[in-house]
């Protein structure tokens, strides 16, 4: 108990004692005590009233003057207020600084709450998306960015990758958006970047490759044509036979590379998913099998195992090039007399086609880069076996157009397995009757 309380208690006892004594002396003990107590209650009530008035006053002001315990209470509240005000000012300052720094960021930033409503955004976001301060705060973000791709991105909970789309504000601006989750209340940060320049560069690169390949094809056809005539000419000087055959082979290689590049740029420029023709894998793979066996006689055996009669919904010639690339590679990198197994089967989320060989295998550090164009594991050997270096890149792109993915497993010395995963909606499962017939 501090001194103020002690004094208050002492004053109370003294006061009531004094009043009691006066009352006793004058013969009105209880009325006097009652009046004394009443005035005490009034005094407290009066001070409470003053406290209330003071606290409800909108502007800051000094506390009312009072003595004793009330004075101390007023003073303490006043001190607390000052402390809070200081802290609030400090936080406001911090927040202002923070917002200033995010406003200055070149990338757009939007804070979304759990209902996807916009809570705050910076200047860059306003410029990129055409948002206006007070008007759009509280608006749901998917009311303003209505692109179906964005809406499904927002609804999915997978924000690993950024999404590229046209800005809803200006169609010449290409933006990339990414959502980052934070906080306990499932708040989200939406980052918006202007990638127009990047997208243009990418397009320029694509166009360049396509145009260059196209321009190279015509001269190559002429060169190849003359070389073919020369090679077929029996009167040709003997010492030139060897060089001409080699030139002929190289020009064929170059033609293959150019066609590969053209095919790749065609696949890259297509925006739509592959069409959904019904493709029966049995005849398709049989055809590829005999082609490859004819091209590499005596290299490896190809064993085809179709475990289901399910059909694929896709683009026939693209599927042909996917499987042909995989099977050709498998045979090419097998030892003589090796065995290549092709397996077509259903799994829980679609279907798979796997091609495995017992050849030389691929070192694990090369696997992630295998589908890059012109990437070679062993430069010397691939020159020897021929090939354009584009096969797997084409495979990956064509597979992507079918919603599929490529999985590569390999062990050096014991062989590799390439597996194409096809999603469920690309697989036409056999009906019961068809299944019975197949069995």
């Amino acid at each position: 108990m501090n001194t103020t309380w002690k004094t208050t208690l002492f004053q109370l006892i003294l006061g009531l004692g004094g009043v009691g004594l006066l009352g006793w002396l004058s013969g009105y003990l209880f009325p006097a005590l009652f009046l004394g107590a009443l005035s005490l209650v009034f005094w407290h009530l009066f001070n409470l009233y003053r406290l209330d008035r003071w606290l409800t006053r909108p502007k800051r002001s000094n506390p009312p003057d009072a003595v004793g315990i009330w004075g101390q209470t007023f003073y303490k509240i006043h001190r607390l207020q000052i402390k809070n005000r200081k802290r609030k000012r400090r936080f406001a300052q911090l927040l202002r600084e923070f917002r200033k720094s995010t406003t200055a960021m070149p990338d757009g930033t939007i804070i979304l709450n759990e209902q996807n409503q916009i809570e705050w955004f910076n200047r860059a976001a306003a410029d990129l998306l055409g948002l206006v301060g007070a008007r759009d705060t509280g608006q749901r973000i998917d009311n303003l960015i209505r692109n179906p791709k964005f809406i499904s991105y927002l609804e999915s909970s997978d924000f690993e990758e950024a999404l590229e789309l046209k800005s809803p504000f200006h169609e010449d601006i290409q933006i990339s958006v990414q959502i980052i989750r934070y906080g306990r209340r499932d708040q989200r940060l939406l980052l918006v970047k202007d990638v127009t320049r990047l997208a243009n560069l990418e397009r320029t690169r694509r166009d360049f490759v396509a145009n260059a390949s196209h321009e190279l094809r015509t001269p190559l056809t002429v060169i190849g044509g003359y070389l073919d005539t020369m090679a077929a000419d029996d009167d040709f000087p003997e010492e030139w036979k060897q060089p001409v055959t080699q030139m002929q082979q190289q020009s064929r290689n170059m033609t293959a590379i150019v066609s590969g590049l053209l095919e790749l740029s065609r696949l890259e420029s297509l925006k739509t998913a592959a069409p959904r023709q019904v493709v029966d894998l049995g005849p398709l793979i049989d055809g590829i099998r005999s082609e490859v066996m004819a091209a590499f006689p005596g290299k490896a055996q190809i064993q085809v195992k179709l475990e289901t009669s399910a059909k694929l919904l896709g683009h026939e010639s693209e599927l042909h090039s996917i499987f042909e690339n995989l099977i050709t590679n498998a045979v090419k990198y097998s030892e003589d007399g090796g065995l290549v197994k092709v397996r077509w089967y259903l799994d829980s989320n679609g279907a798979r086609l796997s091609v495995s060989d017992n050849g030389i295998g691929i070192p694990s550090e090369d696997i992630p880069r295998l589908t890059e164009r012109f990437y070679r594991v062993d430069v010397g050997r691939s020159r020897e076996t021929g090939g354009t270096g584009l096969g797997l890149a084409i495979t990956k792109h064509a597979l992507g157009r079918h919603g599929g993915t490529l999985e590569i497993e390999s062990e050096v010395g014991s062989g590799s397995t390439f597996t194409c995963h096809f999603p469920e909606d690309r697989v036409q499962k056999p009906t019961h009757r068809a299944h019975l017939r197949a069995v």
Partner: protein
Amino acid sequence: MDNTDLAQHISRQYDQELEDVRNRVLAMGGLVEDQIQKAIEALINSDSELGESVVLEDYKVNEMEVSIDEECSRILALRHPTASDLRLVVAIIKTITDLERIGDEAEKIGFLATRLASRPQISNRYRDIKHLGRHVGRMVHDALNTFARLDADEAFNVAKQDEEVDKDYESIMRQLITVMMEDPRTIRQVLDVMWVARSLERIGDHAKNICEYVIYLVHGKDVRHTKLREHDSLAEAEEHLKD
């Protein structure tokens, strides 16, 4: 939000339902915008595959219309909305009808793009069609924005753009007629291009309708079939309505 005070309801769930259905209308709008853009792109780039995909995707727009319609009937039956809530539901029911029609027009353009892709492009390579398409696409986009922001003044401005679209359409028509007169062998494909222009013009009309529903929703005034072009601002047009 502030205009219609959707936030005043005691029942949070009801609020949520109204906001959700509004959000779904806008999602449907996004899909329709995408369809328009793809259809025009398919036409200009002679991309028959893209045109076909527009035709195939139209069912999504139709499905959304049906499900939003059902949701609105459910709200009408269970919640008995009044005042601005009622106007919101009514505006939504009307808006989705127009959006669905826009989807149909986009489908038509996609179909025509597929058919035209196999023929040589006519003289000016669809430059004017591209321009009209951009304008109309922008109009649909802005109309949906005013619906999202409940901005009646902006809706009025967007609705007025329909006049320009009509003018563009007329000038394209005149041009196409000239092309046909010069070389009657092109008539078949020019007729197809005409249908595309016609569809785009119709899309402009539907976008204008959506703007009118926004004005009705925010101000409770029906400005359909009034001559918007005679007035410079919404306030003026409304003044006129009172007389």
